[in-house]
C-alpha cells in the first residue's frame, strides 16, 4: 500500500542532508497557494556529484525504492551518485510517500535553470527552494499531459489572484 505523502518530513530529510534541489510540479503549486492536492512530491536536484552523494544518503534514510506499477514494495537500487547520475527521471516510494526526481523537467534543462527564478519558501525552521509559479506553469504547458490540462486553469487563476494581491 502506498504510504501517504508527508511532504514536511520528506523535505526535512533532504534539508538534513544538505541536498540542493528545487521543488517542482504539483507540490510547488501547492506551496504557491494552489488548492489542488498532489499525491507525490517532485523535485529537480542539482546534478553535481557531491550533491548526488548527499541525495543518495537522504534516499537511503528514506528507505527509497524504485516505484513500479503492480510491485507494491518497489525495487531496490544502488544508493550512490553513479546510479543517480545516469537517470533523467526516477519514481520512488519512500517512508514518507511517493517521491519523484526529475533532472530535466519538461521545458527546462535542469536545476541551474530552475533555481534562477526559484523562490525561498519558509517551512518550519528552514526554507526550501520552490520553482516559480510561472516556471511550474511553463513546465506543465510543455508536458501537455491530460493531468496538466486539468490543473492549468487553476494555476492560471492562482497567478491572476496573486498578481491582484501584489497590486493592492
Amino acid at each position, binding site marked *: 500500500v502506498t504510504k501517504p505523502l508527508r*511532504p*514536511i518530513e520528506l523535505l526535512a530529510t533532504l534539508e538534513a542532508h544538505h541536498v540542493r534541489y528545487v521543488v517542482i510540479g504539483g*507540490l510547488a503549486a501547492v506551496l504557491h497557494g494552489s488548492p489542488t492536492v*498532489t*499525491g507525490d512530491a517532485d523535485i529537480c536536484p542539482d546534478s553535481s556529484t557531491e550533491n548526488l552523494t548527499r541525495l543518495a544518503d537522504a534516499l537511503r534514510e528514506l528507505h527509497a525504492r524504485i516505484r513500479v506499477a503492480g510491485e507494491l514494495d518497489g525495487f531496490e537500487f544502488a544508493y550512490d551518485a553513479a546510479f543517480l547520475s545516469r537517470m533523467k527521471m526516477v519514481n520512488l516510494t519512500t517512508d514518507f510517500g511517493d517521491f519523484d526526481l526529475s533532472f530535466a523537467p519538461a521545458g527546462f534543462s535542469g536545476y541551474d535553470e530552475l533555481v534562477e527564478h526559484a523562490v525561498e519558501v519558509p517551512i518550519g525552521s528552514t526554507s526550501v527552494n520552490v520553482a516559480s509559479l510561472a516556471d511550474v506553469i511553463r513546465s506543465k504547458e510543455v508536458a501537455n499531459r491530460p493531468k496538466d490540462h486539468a490543473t492549468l486553469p*487553476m494555476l492560471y487563476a492562482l497567478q491572476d489572484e496573486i498578481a491582484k494581491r501584489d497590486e493592492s
Partner: protein
Amino acid sequence: LGTKQSAVSNWERGIDVPRVDTLARILDACGFEADLTFRRHDDVDRSQIAGALSQSPEDRLETVARVTELVGLARQGDAA
C-alpha cells in the same frame, strides 16, 4: 454625451446597453475611466484559492498530508 434622451431611457430600462466608446464618455463625465483586463475564461472556484492563500506554506503541506492519508484509507476500504 451627445446622446439622445431615448437612448439613455433604453439603458435605464435595460432595453439596450451603451457602446464601449459611449461608456467611456459616461465614465469620463463622472470623473472615472475604464480599466479593462483580459483574463482567460475558467470555471475555477476562486474562493478555494483565497482559502489556500490564507494558509501558511506549512499548513498547505499539512493539508496535502491529511488529504492523501484520507485517500489512502478510502482506497484500502475499496480494496477490502
